[in-house]
């Protein structure tokens, strides 16, 4: 049995002394499709990059590491690139060239491959991934899913023996993620390339994998794949957000009638006569495929985009907060603390409020860190915290749980629920069905520019063929959180005067 990766007692610490990996014994068989599972910030990226010296982090490494029997640092750069390939999490920031064709050829040019052979390799890889129809397109015009497929194809053009992928589907919607995983599965099974995927959401990948390891506390341990196989979210397993506090007579916060919206005159209509109503104090989750208009509807509600026909009435427009899909759009300062203080004077909240928010988000130890140096989950929490400090009456959230692990999702969902309990109205666009099922009071399905259905979560999800939430890590964390809250509530009631205690 040939081992693609073998490490013993592998340790790594960053220059500031942070020990990320401790005595890691890691094996990957040749031809395997291994999942490397761990929470956000557990060290998955650090471990993966040890196998690719060109991008290994700066720090102190100890122990032994072999990739196909050789220390990766001992290989010449060209040989190393043809041994181990790497696919990053965010393709948009890692694509180098302006067209698909050139991006595929980039690595081959670096290796000094002869032009005729280059063209042949391009043809092979483009055909394998079905890239030929968009071969000449600008990379800037590709969807997220296409960009990630391109990244994988460009990596495979160099014919590596092993491909290491760092959260490759974290930024993709579920459909694009599934398509990508299927391509990766073919790479592994048909081409025999060893695959290691670092992920905090293994449920979607369990059916493709051959084995899994978990990284926790700097150490690695094997875990059975069955632990990750997806199960449907049963009604008995969790309870939806309480709707008792959304009164029928609460009034409408948002009223959209016959809204027609497009980006510009040359673009097709995104919203086509859409009607929607959001009650004050509710949480409406907008579901729908890519391009169905979820983000556009949020922008129309926030009045950043205006309908060319119809109207959007937003009674809470003066006190709204908008969380974009990429939280980096909100960051203007050099540290997490400065971000939270940026609107302090304008909104009148104090240092105590900032400290309390840091504590609720678990960011006390990260106050001096630049927002871009935070992990994905920490960035999302920081962005949400920044918005919540302004005490908005309307929260517009675009994919608030994207790219987060289960525990981080539960924390974010908790913050959103607290804001709603304090009186805010929430509208969230999301692909996360479990989040919609467990946290929303209303679910609206967008299709063909209109709302195809708008119902309470229990009614919406009870009879779907495709929109079925899974009992994933978030659902389990959310249940645990709810049970802990219920226990605390019961204990407080017991301790109250006149209570059972």
């Amino acid at each position: 049995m040939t081992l693609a990766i073998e490490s013993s007692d592998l340790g790594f610490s960053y220059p500031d002394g942070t020990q990320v990996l401790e005595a890691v014994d890691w094996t990957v068989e040749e031809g395997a499709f291994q999942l490397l599972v761990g929470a956000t910030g557990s060290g998955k990226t650090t471990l993966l990059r040890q196998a690719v010296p060109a991008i290994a982090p700066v720090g102190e490494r100890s122990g032994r590491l072999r990739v196909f029997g050789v220390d990766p640092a001992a290989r010449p750069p060209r040989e190393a690139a043809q041994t181990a390939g790497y696919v990053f999490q965010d393709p948009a920031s890692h694509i180098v060239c302006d067209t698909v064709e050139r991006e595929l050829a980039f690595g081959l040019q670096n290796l000094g491959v002869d032009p005729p052979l280059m063209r042949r390799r391009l043809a092979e890889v483009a055909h394998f991934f079905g890239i030929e129809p968009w071969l000449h397109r600008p990379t800037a015009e590709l969807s997220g899913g296409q960009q990630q497929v391109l990244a994988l194809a460009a990596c495979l053009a160099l014919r590596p023996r092993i491909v290491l992928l760092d959260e490759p589907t974290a930024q993709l919607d579920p459909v694009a993620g599934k398509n990508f995983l299927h391509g990766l599965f073919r790479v592994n099974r048909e081409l025999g390339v060893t695959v290691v995927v670092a992920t905090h959401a293994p449920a979607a990948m369990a059916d493709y994998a051959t084995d899994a390891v978990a990284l926790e506390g700097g150490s690695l341990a094997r875990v059975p794949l069955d632990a990750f196989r997806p199960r449907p979210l049963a009604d008995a397993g969790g309870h939806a957000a309480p709707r008792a506090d959304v009164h029928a007579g609460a009034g409408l916060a948002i009223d959209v009638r016959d809204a027609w919206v497009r980006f510009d005159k040359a673009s097709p209509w995104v919203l086509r006569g859409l009607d929607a109503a959001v009650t004050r104090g509710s949480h409406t989750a907008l579901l729908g495929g890519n391009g169905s208009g979820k983000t556009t509807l949020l922008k129309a509600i926030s009045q950043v985009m205006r309908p060319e026909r119809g109207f959007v009435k937003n009674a809470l427009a003066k006190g709204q907060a908008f969380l974009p899909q990429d939280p980096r759009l909100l960051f203007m300062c050099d540290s997490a603390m400065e971000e939270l203080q940026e609107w302090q004077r304008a909104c009148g909240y104090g240092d105590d409020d900032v400290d309390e928010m840091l504590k609720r988000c678990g960011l006390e130890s990260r106050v001096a860190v630049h927002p871009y140096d935070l992990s994905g989950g920490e960035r999302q929490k920081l962005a949400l915290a920044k918005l919540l400090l302004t005490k908005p009456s309307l929260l517009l959230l675009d994919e608030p749980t994207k790219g987060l692990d289960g525990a981080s999702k539960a924390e974010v969902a908790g913050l959103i629920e607290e804001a709603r309990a304090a009186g805010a109205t929430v509208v969230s666009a999301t692909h996360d069905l479990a989040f919609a099922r467990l946290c929303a009071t209303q679910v609206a399905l967008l299709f063909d520019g209109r709302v195809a259905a708008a119902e309470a979560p229990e009614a919406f999800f009870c009879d779907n063929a495709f929109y079925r939430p899974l009992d994933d890590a978030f659902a389990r964390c959310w249940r645990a959180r709810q049970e802990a809250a219920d226990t605390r509530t019961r204990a407080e009631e017991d301790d109250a005067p006149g209570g059972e205690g």
Partner: protein
Amino acid sequence: MGAVGELFHPAVAFAWGASTIVLSMAFMQPVLAVVSWAGAALANVACRGLRATAASFAWQAPLMALVALGNFVFAAQGSTELFRIGARAFYLESLVFGCVMALSLSAMLLWFSALFSVATPDDVLDLVGGVLPVTGLLTSMTCSLVPQFTRRGRAVRDVMAANTAAVRASGGAGGASGDPCRARGRRRPLPGAASLRQPLRVLTVVVGWGLEDSLDRAASCKARAWGSGPRTRYRRRGLRRTDALALALVGALALASLVCGLCATDAFAFYPHLRGWAPWGLYAPWAALCLLPSAATLALGGRSGDDAGDRII
């Protein structure tokens, strides 16, 4: 050159574009200027379509009028007086000179539009990539980054505008209201109080994000063996015999146009009266260079249909 242009190596399109642009600027002679302008207009119709060409005319017309009338008003030269205002006379020769300047300027702009409607960044890389490989890669990266930065700038601006809760206490939430939004336009302006700082803040975010991305992009380059040794060059197409013949024809027409055009220009004078019209034969090479490729393109059905996203401009 549209569909015809795609049949030939990019060098042919660039040679044709470069020769027409340079010679347009050199020929200050009425007939040559008219031929140049007509050829440029025809090239635009062939490459960009009638609507885009008309849109170009819409903004060029005032500019042309300014140039033509400027010379007419301020250069009191010539012998054929058209009219007089007080002691100031206005001459036909000044008007003609102004019109020729305006036509030359418009022709040059139209030739640029036509060339860069068919030339892609890939074409630039095909031409310079072998001689200046790092420049070629930088060009390619710039072409992909410019639209990305533009999109991000718009997105940052939209997010700033949408977060009205962050400015309401300062009274700066000028744009947000609870009134129904009727169809008044696609985007609303930023809150008034912060509008002076907004462009700088947008720029700060976009530049900072770009610098962060540069680290990721560098990692992506290194992971694919960038800097590991001499690079080979990826060429989408080589120069075939047909391309070489087309290039030779363009070169020959350009040379003949240069010689004949300079003769015609030297022989002609605007002042004190228009004189020195050259034999019609001297204009033939220039007319062929300006008109033949576009006429061929139109005869073959005009610009290709799937080129919308692939052009520099």
